[in-house]
């Protein structure tokens, strides 16, 4: 484990009650990398992100960020340490306006610089007073990412960001993720292999809770290679 690794997961085992979901997972991400986790539904990808974030307690193993253990800390403490989780299903606070959603992101981080959000997503400027529940899927995802990047997190855990989105929005998000990687490390769970292969520096293929492959060479990261593990 190198202390300059933004994220190091070693020997991680996670269970839901009697049912074991993750088996001896090892993963690491260095500064500025985009690390993708691919795998079928039920492979344990979301469980992995939730465990890193502190929502789930592992039965064994370690999760460290810059050498500091994240295990046993509440999720809000992990978030305060600069690790942000963008959940799947575009879970905005639907009863709150876009502005209020961003206010909560700012309240938690004391970062009120919304320009960086609207620079990535200019469309949000016009939607500030709209209830988030009335946003389209793409707009919701923009809001989720915008809310998470307040406070300049060092690590962004992004769960299925492009699921159900139009190709034009996916293309926009691809550019955003590339830009974000200059400031944050990204761990993205994604099933969209062309996107993964376009942006990822490293890919972990998961199957039934096991890491089946680690593709760390850009030459290896191709849709046909990744597809073998899906």
């Amino acid at each position, binding site marked *: 484990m190198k202390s300059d690794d933004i994220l190091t997961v070693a020997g991680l085992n996670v269970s839901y009650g009697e049912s074991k979901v993750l088996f001896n997972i090892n993963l690491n991400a260095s500064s500025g990398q985009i690390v993708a986790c691919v795998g079928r539904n039920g492979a344990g990808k979301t469980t992995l992100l939730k465990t890193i974030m502190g929502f789930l307690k592992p039965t064994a193993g370690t999760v460290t960020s810059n050498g500091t253990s994240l295990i046993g800390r*509440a*999720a*809000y403490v992990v*978030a305060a340490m600069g690790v*942000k989780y963008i959940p799947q299903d575009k879970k905005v*606070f639907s009863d709150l306006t876009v502005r*209020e959603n961003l206010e*909560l992101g700012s309240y938690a*981080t004391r970062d009120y610089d919304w320009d960086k959000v609207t620079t990535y997503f200019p469309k949000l400027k016009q939607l500030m007073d709209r209830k988030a529940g009335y946003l389209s899927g793409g707009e919701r995802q923009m809001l989720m990412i915008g809310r998470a990047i307040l406070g300049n997190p060092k690590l962004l855990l992004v769960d299925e960001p492009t699921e159900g989105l139009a190709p034009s929005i996916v293309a926009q998000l691809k550019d955003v993720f590339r830009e974000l990687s200059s400031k944050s490390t990204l761990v993205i769970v994604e099933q969209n292999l062309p996107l993964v292969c376009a942006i990822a520096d490293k890919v972990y293929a998961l199957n039934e809770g096991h890491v089946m492959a680690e593709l760390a060479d850009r030459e290896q990261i191709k849709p046909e290679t990744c597809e073998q593990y899906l």
Partner: protein
Amino acid sequence: MIDAHLLVSGIIFGLSMGSIYFLTAIGLSLCFGLMRVISLDQLLYYAIGAYITYSISAAIGNLWLGILCGVVVGGLAGFAVERLVFLRIYEKDITFSMITSFGILIGGVGVIKFIWGLVPRPVPVPIETQLNVLGTDVPVYRLIVILIALLVYAGIWLFLNRTIIGKAIRAGTEDVENVEGLGINVYRLFTITFIIAGALSALAGGLNSPLIMVDPQMGLEVLAFTFMVVIIGGLGSIKGTFISALLVGQVVSLGSLIYAPLAQMAPFAIMLLILLIKPTGLYGSQLLKR
């Protein structure tokens, strides 16, 4: 036909009763909405509020100071119970909180009996004046109770919509995990919610004390109606709780004018009807995960 004077006083009576139901139910609703716990101990704070009001007003003759002290004690009791009990059971199944809080309620009733005894206590009405409303004299105190409930509703609305803590609580009622993921200490929100809930339940007890006889079982006596108000309004909805409380108050009050047994039966019939049409209650959203 109901006499017009009787109808006016029935409506005012129903509104004041609905106001008390609202203040009692709002804590239950807030606690469910944010923490997904059923906090029946709110009915204990209701009784505590009434007894503190009784004791203070008996000692110094000032009901309003008694109510204020009751509110403070209710808030502190809510704080203590949240820290000592609920903090340990948030992750458990919802039935666990229901059973535990019912135990706290029953235990608390025992403590009340030990301190104040079994005999019901009267609390004098602070304002005997009657006000003429549409040709009918109605007690001013009941109008004050209605006014206070309206102010509390407005205050809660402002708190939830205009303060960042309130917005975080609203967000938490949708998805508390998502709020925590932003870096907000949700356990602090839980504590704040419990304090507010306890204080408001105690306010209900204090305000109601001159309108009833204060007795140890008073929390248990309103338990069914409070629960019904929360369910009709929609779990976690403040607006729903408010409208539902006024509706139940009217049904009980006007029902008793038409046919006395209706007062007890009709609210349950209304609840069944509403749940058949809208299973989540008037303003309840789909049950979201904690």
